[in-house]
């Protein structure tokens, strides 16, 4: 077989891979994107059951923005000319706490002022400390922008003069910072609602990443694509092709070939060898180092240690309900709900280690953003929860269906009681994406839908500062949820963009 040569090969067409391939192709690099599945996007996809087309994973995309005030993602998409119809998400979130003693039910709006006003309404005398919190978040956001632009080589003087508060808070957790700012307890509980999007309790979660996410949500609002996230993935794919890149599906990269510490090519499961000096890997670092890299045994031990120091993020569990009544008829008034048994997210985090505990629920009723996303007279409800480590290890072929359905039944009961509604008799279509499902379609490592946990010591900032140290092999860079930007949709896309640009820069030094 004749050997093909590319300037860059991107392994995996998840969000990070798509964004990276689009970036390198736009820069004029001869780009090949290889995906093991027959669809692009990884979790950014869609699936049809009966008369419903479900969104598998995206709750809301932050950092999109709109004409005149594009966020980072929005600017990136626009620059690539992606054809995506964006629909705004109406409110930030509704948070319902079901514990008898802690019970509350709040709905928070987008917009910084609106959010702070609403918080003052729910928690009198919270205004000053919450305003301080968001000022700090803004500084964090600016500082991260600066660090990103400096590509891991920041000028210390600029940092200490312009971003001193950022520096002070960078090594602390969300809880530490909120407490230092003397934010009232209830306001902190409400502020921490999004913690499950990052999957680490706020006692351990790095403040920078949470703060940056919060402020982006509130300043720019959130958006979802009209045709599920599959629309984003296909728009990326089209851009890659339009820029002259090649995309192949149904092909798995088995080996990343390394000689003398530098990438020389890849080998596919079809036995084809493709020459390249640059690989952008959308698969996790430990998967690449653990089973794909060939010819660099010297890095194995280092890679093992790195992996063992980290924690793999939460395993995904999503129940999808196609309902034969409208959202209004069912009493589903909001787009995004967080239903938590308690405000104590440390307790919630530890409950993720046991299946059947049903730790928390992040719920989306898509019809409240896109009324016609399902046929007239119907609606769709998607419920996400997370598990950790061994919570599913006892699940085998024969108890699998019961394991996943028991959780779904529990979820239905919880929603009905928390929101005082009835949905159980309206279920026309039902499906579950369990950790096994994510492993099946997207090769998710042990069913994890997130990257390595962004604990304070391994959060965005230390990763950014160590981008050079994390380069174990010349020409091998990583994009996606396990990469330097940590996980989440927007981080996935933006990591792909940054890594694409860095790879382009690397390639200029090839000759």
């Amino acid at each position, binding site marked *: 077989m004749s050997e093909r040569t590319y300037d860059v090969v991107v392994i995996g067409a998840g969000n990070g891979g798509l964004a990276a391939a689009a970036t390198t192709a736009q820069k004029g690099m001869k780009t090949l994107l290889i995906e093991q599945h027959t669809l692009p996007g990884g979790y950014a996809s869609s699936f049809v059951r009966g008369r419903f087309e479900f969104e598998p994973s995206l709750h809301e995309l932050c950092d999109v923005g709109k004409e005149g005030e594009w966020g980072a993602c929005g600017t990136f998409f626009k620059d690539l000319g992606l054809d995506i119809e964006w629909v705004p998400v109406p409110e930030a979130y509704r948070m319902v706490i079901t514990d008898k003693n802690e019970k509350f039910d709040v709905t928070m709006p987008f917009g910084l002022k609106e959010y702070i006003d609403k918080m003052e309404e729910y928690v009198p005398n919270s205004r000053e400390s919450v305003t301080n919190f968001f000022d700090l978040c803004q500084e964090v956001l600016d500082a991260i922008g600066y660090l990103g632009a400096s590509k891991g080589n920041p000028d210390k003087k600029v940092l200490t003069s312009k971003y001193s508060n950022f520096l002070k808070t960078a090594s602390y957790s969300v809880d530490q910072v909120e407490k230092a700012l003397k934010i009232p307890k209830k306001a902190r509980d409400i502020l921490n609602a999004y913690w499950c999007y990052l999957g680490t309790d706020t006692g351990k979660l790095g403040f920078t990443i949470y703060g940056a996410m919060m402020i982006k949500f509130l300043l720019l609002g959130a958006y979802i694509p009209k045709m599920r996230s599959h629309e984003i993935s296909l728009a990326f794919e089209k851009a890659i092709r339009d820029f002259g890149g090649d995309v192949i599906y149904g092909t798995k990269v088995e080996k990343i070939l390394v000689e003398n510490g530098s990438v020389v090519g890849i080998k596919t499961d079809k036995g084809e060898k493709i020459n390249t000096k640059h690989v952008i890997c959308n698969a996790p670092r430990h998967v690449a180092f653990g089973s794909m890299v060939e010819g660099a045994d010297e890095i194995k031990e280092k890679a093992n240690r790195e992996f063992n120091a980290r924690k793999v993020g939460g395993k995904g569990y999503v129940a999808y309900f196609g309902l034969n009544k409208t959202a209004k008829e069912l009493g589903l008034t909001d787009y995004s709900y967080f239903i938590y048994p308690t405000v104590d997210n440390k307790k919630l985090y530890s409950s993720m280690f046991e299946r059947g505990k049903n730790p928390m629920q992040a719920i989306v009723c898509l019809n409240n953003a896109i009324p016609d996303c399902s046929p007239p007279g119907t609606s769709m409800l998607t419920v996400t929860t997370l598990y950790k480590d061994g919570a599913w290890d006892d699940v085998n072929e024969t108890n699998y269906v019961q394991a996943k359905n028991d959780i779904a039944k529990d979820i239905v009961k919880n929603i009905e009681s928390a929101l005082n509604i009835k949905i159980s008799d309206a279920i*026309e*279509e039902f499906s579950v994406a369990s950790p096994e499902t994510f492993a099946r379609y997207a090769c998710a*490592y042990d069913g994890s839908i997130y990257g390595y946990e962004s604990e304070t010591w391994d959060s965005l900032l230390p990763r950014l500062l160590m981008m050079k140290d994390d380069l174990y092999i010349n020409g091998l860079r990583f994009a996606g949820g396990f990469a330097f930007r940590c996980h989440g949709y927007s981080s996935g896309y933006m990591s792909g963009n940054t890594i694409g640009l860095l790879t382009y820069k690397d390639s200029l030094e090839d000759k």
Partner: protein
Amino acid sequence: MDKKLNVKIKPIGLLDLLAFKKLVPNRKKKFEEAPATEIKKTPPMNELAAKLHPKHQKFMITKVTDLTDSMRQFELSSDSAAYFRAGQYISVKLDIDGHKVTRPYSIMSSPKEALAGKYMLGIKKADDGFVTEYIFNNWKEGTAIETSGPEGNFYYEDIRDAKTVIGIAGGCGITPFFSMAQAIRDGIEDFNLCLLYGCKTLDESALKKELDEIAKTDSRVKVVCVLSNEEKEGYEHGFITADIIKEYAGTEPYSIFMCGPQVMYDFVGKEINKLGLEKKFVRRELYGQINNVEKHEGFPKDQVGKKYKLTIHIGLKTITTEALSTESVLVAVERAKVIAPSLCRTGECGCCRSRLISGDVFIVEDTDGRRMADKKFGYIHICSSFPLSDLEIEIPVV
């Protein structure tokens, strides 16, 4: 921005700056101090996924039994057969004179038998089916075959369905219900299954005896034969009508599951409409590929009998072939001896999803299982798309 804010995390602010400087050394230390134990290549969830959803399965045919004059039962054996949900199918891969084709067949055995490495298939010989003819002539004890993993969504789901299922079966459509009945008997499923089994004559009612045996020992299973071409005492006569369904359904809520040939769907579908059931209580299995597309409403009359040029891109290769307007693009690809991915062959599963680079196709509305964005960006399911012009497509590598 207001810069007056001065955050104090700990009493001594200087320590914070120090902590920042320590971010990098701390992370390095964390890495260095962690154990160097090997990274697990296939963790539990990926292992489970491989077991439940193998891409390919290899079997040996270990037993062939005639069920009726035109229906045959094949026992498939292997070291391991993926566990499945009663009602699911496997797609059988065949090589007929170099043509790589697939056919979906419901698994008729109990999921329990899969644990012992066995599946049973019940295949009916179609009048003009070159694939079933091939199978009947060639599948013998000792024949090696390859299949997909278990697929499809035609199974009982207690969170969604009524506790009683009226199963309407015709012809070899009895096979998924036979699996469900055994699953109930074996304690794998728990619902009431009342089968209305439409046959021409009693002789053609494959598996009737076996089903009666299950019904005898398990009160949740019930079997009623509805004979269209013969009147026999103790059997319903005629077609499966709304009245018959009502008679056997009783007063409790019920779901209808239907599996059989297209003609049965056309007739019984109208009868079911008379019952005024909510859509969620009526489910039907896919009926396999469309054979008479020209009879479908909306198929342009002047297109009958047209031949078009079909350009197929697959991996590095480009192949040019001919395609008939009345045969699906998938069939044209298979005729050209190109391996195309396919499972359900009814437009639903999306396995054959391909990029339409240029040209027009006809898609029967019922079988257009595409995602919205696929329509927007020019993707088709080639198993349910029929050429209306010269076509250029890119199909995924299998």
